[in-house]
């Protein structure tokens, strides 16, 4: 006997495509039962995989490789959103020129209030997911399904106080494995699989405690712009080691504030960031050019090759010559 799925004909909108949810430059590129693929027109690539889980609940995977700034649709929606980023970080800009960053392995739960006006990716790449619970589109069936597992969205909102502020915390181990399974299943599994994982995720979300909340640190847009401008200047000429103070001359920011914001955006202190950037450039040159190690060291501001070799080993764990040999063998 063939049993019909109870989700068949349940809701005609259960197709994972909500044009009003995405940036105005988003375009639907493919649509399969339960999953839509949306592409963002940008200077690079931006792809969303939108899986319909239950009526009113969508799981959206995001993959961005671009430096664009996207507008968040400003229509007030009655939603609750859980966001997590596997790689990269996101810069959210709110009304009033306040900016904050969500980092890899942090996750947040946010309500319809305090929705960001814009967002971008400081590393020019980002992959993550967003679980969107659209309360207006949720049907009684969805609510009753959630209730079977003691999941009540209103209680979750109340417990985490999402009406007033974002709930941000380090991803707890119980949720880490669910996120890991979700990322591994992207494009391979069906909505059926995601349904179970989403229930697990929501179940664990109901166990979150207010005390584990991490306070979000907001910075002024003008400070963020200074930091980005100075970073660009720092990377312009890698062959010279210019003191940070020189870059900050004439900028309306103190060295301490600059260093704090720099670390917030890029995850490292300016010195460590520059060192990693130099070593990544070195790795590219070692792989793709025939320049001598001495020449590469000089082009990156190292006065001698042994100092450069030490720095390279600190970052990549091998000496530049061994790295080049290994890469050539591949």
């Amino acid at each position, binding site marked *: *006997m063939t*049993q019909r*799925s*109870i*989700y*068949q004909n349940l809701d005609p909108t259960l197709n994972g495509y909500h044009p009003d949810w995405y940036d105005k430059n988003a375009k639907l590129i493919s649509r399969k039962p339960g999953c839509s693929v949306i592409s963002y027109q940008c200077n690079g690539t931006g792809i969303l995989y939108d899986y319909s889980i239950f009526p009113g609940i969508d799981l959206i995977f995001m993959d961005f490789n671009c430096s664009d700034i996207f507008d968040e649709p400003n229509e007030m929606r009655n939603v609750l959103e859980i966001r997590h980023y596997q790689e990269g970080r996101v810069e959210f800009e709110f009304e009033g020129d306040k900016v904050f960053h969500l980092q890899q392995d942090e996750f947040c739960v946010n309500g319809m209030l305090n929705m960001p006006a814009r967002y971008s990716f400081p590393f020019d790449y980002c992959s993550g997911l967003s679980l969107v619970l659209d309360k207006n589109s949720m049907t009684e069936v969805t609510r009753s*399904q959630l209730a*079977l*597992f003691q999941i009540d969205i209103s209680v979750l909102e109340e417990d985490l106080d999402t009406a007033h502020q974002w709930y941000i915390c380090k991803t707890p181990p119980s949720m880490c*494995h669910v996120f*890991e*399974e979700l990322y*591994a299943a992207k494009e391979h599994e069906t909505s*059926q*699989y995601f*349904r*179970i994982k989403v*229930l*697990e995720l929501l*179940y*664990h979300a109901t166990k979150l405690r207010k005390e584990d909340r991490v306070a979000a640190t907001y910075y002024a847009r003008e400070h963020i712009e200074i930091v980005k401008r100075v970073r660009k200047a720092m990377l312009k000429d890698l062959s010279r080691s210019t003191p940070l103070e020189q870059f900050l001359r004439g900028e309306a920011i103190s060295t301490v504030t600059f260093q704090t914001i720099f670390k917030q955006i890029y995850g490292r202190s300016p010195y460590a960031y520059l060192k990693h950037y130099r070593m990544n450039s070195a790795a590219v040159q070692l792989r793709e050019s025939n320049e001598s190690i001495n020449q590469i060291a000089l082009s990156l501001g190292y006065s001698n090759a042994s100092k450069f070799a030490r720095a390279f080993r600190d970052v990549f764990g091998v000496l530049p010559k061994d790295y080049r040999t290994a890469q050539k063998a591949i």
Partner: protein
Amino acid sequence: MTMKQRSEVAADRAASYLREMGIRPSSKAYQYLLFALTQLQCGTPFQNSIWELTAIHFGQKRENVLACVRREIAHAFRMAPDRFSNERVGDVPARPPQSMAFLRLGLYMINRVVY
């Protein structure tokens, strides 16, 4: 072992157990029981709502899933009641086990025997 590998191993163990107990792989109940046993082995937080979870996964009503499972367990019992004997007491039960008891026994056997 990755999550995926762990879940594949769990599914293999569950499948061996179900076949050993006479649950027909061609039946719908086999799919339901396989899913439920795999989820339980993988530590689902919904141990007490495993039938609800199974029903949601397959897009069915819980009652339909349970009825289907009950029928298949009853069939397996009719075919070979000895398989359901209590190994400690040695008695063959008079009637097939309830669906939840069958799952619990399955989990116990899977964890005890390395397939």
